């Protein structure tokens, strides 16, 4: 019997493919977002309500939708004139870099794309570990959930660059304390950029969309220099 030292990251293969995805998207100057949340926090609604603001800023974008079954989300997004590709994962609870690699030919056939939004499977646990090749991971949580969610699901908040607290219009009717939620999120990740929004009333959506638009424009301008 002998011992062999391996010292390898378990997700090394996923990370390699993610790096290649990132490279392919960067070569085209496309900014990629990995949108994550628990089911029902409003990822698809956020995309829908951002559409007008992104169009106003001439950000042409496409959406890759991850779900276990069906193409409900892709159809919702397409109604707004946004190209959307549905990926069904079957029983898998998250997207991985390999699935995104397969969607890239579809993404890259769209000329002049500045932004790719990847809507992950509604799940606050598993997507945290899987780099897809995105530029930033954005977590959505809603005021219909608990304001202690960042402390209960720290991995996803720690892996994210941006947090959107959605359904602020419902806050008066729930026990959700937005100030406490911000505090908890910043405990887990002191570098989080936090937005508050309501897709229903439109509050805060413009600011969030403007932030994403700026990231996309910056990335595109880096490519052109």
């Amino acid at each position, binding site marked *: 019997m002998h*011992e*062999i030292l391996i010292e*390898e*990251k*378990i*997700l090394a293969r996923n990370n390699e493919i993610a790096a290649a995805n990132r490279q392919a998207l960067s070569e085209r100057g496309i900014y990629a977002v990995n949108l994550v949340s628990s089911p029902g926090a409003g990822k698809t609604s956020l995309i829908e309500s951002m559409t007008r603001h992104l169009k106003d800023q001439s950000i042409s974008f496409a959406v890759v939708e991850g779900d276990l079954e069906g193409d409900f989300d892709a159809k919702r997004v397409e109604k707004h004139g946004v190209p959307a590709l549905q990926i069904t994962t079957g029983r898998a609870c998250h997207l991985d870099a390999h699935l995104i690699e397969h969607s890239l030919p579809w993404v890259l056939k769209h000329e002049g794309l500045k932004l790719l939004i990847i809507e992950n499977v509604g799940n606050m646990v598993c997507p945290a570990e899987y780099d897809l090749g995105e530029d930033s991971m954005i977590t959505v949580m809603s005021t219909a959930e608990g304001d202690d969610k960042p402390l209960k699901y720290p991995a996803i908040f720690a892996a994210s660059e941006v947090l959107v607290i959605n359904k602020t219009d419902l806050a008066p009717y729930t026990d959700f304390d937005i100030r406490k939620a911000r505090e908890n999120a910043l*405990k887990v990740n002191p570098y989080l950029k936090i937005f508050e929004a309501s897709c229903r009333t439109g509050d805060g959506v413009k600011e969030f969309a403007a932030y994403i638009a700026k990231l996309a424009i910056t990335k595109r301008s880096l490519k052109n220099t």
Partner: protein
Amino acid sequence: MHEMSITRSILEIVGRQMAANNMNSLKKLTLRVGELTAIEPEVLRFCFDAAIKGTQFDGAALIIEEVPLGGRCRECAGEFRITAFDNCCPKCGSTNIDRVSGDELDIISMEGD
């Protein structure tokens, strides 16, 4: 529950390493799992035991070294465990800290014949 796909990734790497080292049977596999990962060691153990049945890995013991979320103080250079995300140096009270461990998800080593 993604511990099963994590298990598949583990066995892929181990299978490749066993072939490269002319190893036919696996006795022990040692992993390093950080506190801040979305991996539950007990679930991973369950998936691993289920996945290796009837394969070349059958009977292997899984050792999981859990790594706590660790911080280092930028003021006094002290190292400590971060509990309940207090992000605060227990020695000098500074909140000017770096996280230095907790996101590990690695295969350390394997033993076999």
